[in-house]
């Protein structure tokens, strides 16, 4: 069995809003780069599945040569190899097309996992488009996966509950964050071992773009407005605060 996990290198997703700035419509280059948080959840899920089923696990990424140093963490977590498709497009269809190329290059992939959304674009659409391109089943927001006979049993975790699904054949699952897939800290031996694992680099293709044009990108201006809650005791203060937050539609 062969599991592929998609991972994307993104700018620091924890840059404080006061410090955030754009450069050419994207996060400034000065911010650290790292794998997306949901992608690490997907890798962790993949490794646990690999250990349970005795599968092999390949990390697939679309990005720059310089991303390899960050992707090695995923390899150190337990992947067997890395496939990087080189490219810079932000177009979801182009990205999916390039990932499809990597999947076809591998040839024997049985299951594809991805983070539920990237930490930079926050769209969560690439796995769906990829599934459509591959003619595979697509399940978003997956928490738990089990391999049973020739079937995959998956649990979709939504804000309102849990849905159990099953399917045959190739599937693309976007993975959400659950307590069981907190990304592991790679052991030192694994970090050094990751340097020796194979990295396959494929030239990307730039076709199949969506009919979209980016006109502008803006980030919200940070404003600080202070409002004192007048209350006799902490309980009353909490009630008032909750009601104010609800009124303002923050919660």
């Amino acid at each position, binding site marked *: 069995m062969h599991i592929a996990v998609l991972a994307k290198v993104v700018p*620091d997703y*924890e*840059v*404080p*809003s*006061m*410090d955030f700035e754009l450069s050419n419509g994207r996060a400034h280059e000065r911010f*650290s780069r*790292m794998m997306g948080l949901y992608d690490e959840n997907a890798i962790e899920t993949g490794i646990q599945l690999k250990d349970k089923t005795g599968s092999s696990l390949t990390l697939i990424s679309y990005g720059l040569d310089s991303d390899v140093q960050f992707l090695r963490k995923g390899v150190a977590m337990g992947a067997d190899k890395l496939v990087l498709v080189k490219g810079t497009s932000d177009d979801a269809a182009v990205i999916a097309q390039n990932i499809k190329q990597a999947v076809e290059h591998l040839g024997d992939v049985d299951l594809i996992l991805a983070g539920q959304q990237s930490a930079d674009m926050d769209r969560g659409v690439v796995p769906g488009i990829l599934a459509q391109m591959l003619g595979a089943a697509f399940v978003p927001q997956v928490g738990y996966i089990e391999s049973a006979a020739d079937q995959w049993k998956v649990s979709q975790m939504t804000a309102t509950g849990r849905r159990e699904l099953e399917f045959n054949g190739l599937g693309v699952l976007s993975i959400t964050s659950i307590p069981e897939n*907190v*990304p*592991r*800290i*790679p*052991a*030192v*031996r*694994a*970090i*050094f071992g990751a*340097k020796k694992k194979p990295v396959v680099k494929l030239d990307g293709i730039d076709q199949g773009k969506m009919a979209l044009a980016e006109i502008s990108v803006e980030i919200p201006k940070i404003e600080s407005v202070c409002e004192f809650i007048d209350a006799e005791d902490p309980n009353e203060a909490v009630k008032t605060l909750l009601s104010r937050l609800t009124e303002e539609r923050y919660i």
Partner: protein
Amino acid sequence: MARIPYWNISYGVIIDLLAIPVFLIFVYGLYLQWQLIKKGQLRVIPSITKVFQGIGTFRPGAFFMRGILNPKIYRKPASGVAHGCVFWGMALLFVGTNLVILNILFGLPVFTGAFNRWFMSFTLDLAGLLVLGGIVFFLLRRQFMPDRLKIPEARTGFVLVSSLLGVLIITGFVIEGARLCANTPEAGAFVGNFLAASVISQTSALQIHTMTWWVHGLLALFFVAYIPFSPLVHIILAPVNSGFADPSPGVKMGVMDFSAFDDEDAEELPALGADKLADFTRKRFLDFASCLWCGRCQEACPAHNTQKPLSPKGVIVTLAQKLAAGEMEDSVMETLSMEAIFNCTTCAACMEVCPVSINQPKTIMRFRQNLVMEQGQMPELMGKAITSLEQRSHPFFGTGSGAAEWRKDLEVPKFEAGKTEYLLWIGCSITYEQRAWTIGRAMVNILKSAHVSFGILEDSRCTGDPAKQMGNEFLFAEIAQQNIDDFSALGIQKIITMCPHCYNSFTRHYPKMGGQYEVIPHASFIRTLVDDKKLQLDRNAQTITYHDPCYLGRRNGVYDDPRNVIASVGNLVEMPRNKNESFCCGGGGGNYWAEETGTRINQARAGEALGTDADAIAVACPFCLLMLTDGVKKYTEEIKAFDIAEIVEKCLPDMAEG
């Protein structure tokens, strides 16, 4: 009448002859101890060639001062005095016994004149009484044990050796009393004279003397032979362990070399940290063998004091038991829990109070290193901090602070190669924790006020200390090497630190990686500025208590400089636990990123600080400031904790941010 050797004893030389095999048994017992210790890993110190038997460098001064004189033992007055009575009493009796042997062999005139009266009679009688008094205390204490002795478990064997020693002393006195009863009273021998006059009858004196002499002699031989096989072996191991102990205060973890992991030809990769007894060095084995299970370490431990699973005594006892049983390869982590191992705040209070110079934190840290670097296991919040440190070069995941926000609207010079004298090292906590911003701002204003040539780095940095304290030596080495390379490029030679953790890294670990700097903690630097009259401060009547940060105090011996600074602006009030006995804030060892069980350590310490009724709680560490600021909230909404730089800044005349 002068004493005559073997008076009233026939064939007394038998005891002397038996002393030879007894001595051999004693030596054999010590040899067995060495055989156990020898199973530990050899200690390799590249910079030091003289590593005695793979244990370390032996320091006779420490052997004598820490091992023999052992001032730490007296920190507990009752048991300290009892130990002193037994140890020094026995030392005198040992000298007396040897003088008797010299008298027998060479006729050394020890039984005549004033020497006989004041030493051989009076002093040795007094010594015997002191030993007896100490033994009575120890036997009573074994009956009514304090928690520190019995939790998690008490060491057995003390009652037997104490009773044996007590019988030896009593029979010694009876021999003397019977001898004097049969002869004449002897000036100075006040115990013997008393027994002769009041207890022993003249008719049976000769018989009692003979019988007791043989019992005493044979028991003494058994006692000596038994020492290496009993807990009393600590009279040998403890001073030796002290002789091999690191002379610098606090825990010195050293740095790890990871080059073997990159070496394609490396045949065997070293184990990282320790998972089993066999992973420890001979020095640690000596620690385990020397431990008396006295529990002073756990009594001082902030984790144990606040109902957390960690007991430093428990860790060492577990390893001592495995050592005694020869269980070298069993995973010790099955006995100790991961939670306990990460409870350690690395405050070094345990090793500070240990009377036999055991380095408990180093043992605990070795387990932590193994969990993190070999097994990738650590508590979730610490894992997030480590990941953030790896990804962003700072451990403050989820921070709302941007890298330059701490110095917003404040003009701060950048370090310029060849122009600036001091690098003002900001560090991660002052950059990314809003409450700590003002430490950096205050220090900038102080340095400007004193016209010091200083500058900061362009970007925010961390020394890597949090990684090291959480057990990730590999990440620490990467960060430290990057800093050292950058410092070299900038020609940095002098560094002012505001965080003792950074100070500790720069002074203890960076030099071993090629980073040699003159590093000054900000409290010491401010003191120098005040002493040199470069800072004019307005002193006021405020009372200030000072919390000693573990990494500045116990680990680096900086106690007086911050106190002198406080005395120059207000009135210092000491907390009950201060200086080397200071109680940790709870944030060390990566526990700033921990979800605590039991009482929160910072709340315990804040309560103690507030108990002084001081107007302010001064600290000289941003982590302590953050922990105590939070701890104080349990008792009052008032802001009471301040960094020493904040306090000094407020006392600058016409203070205004530049």
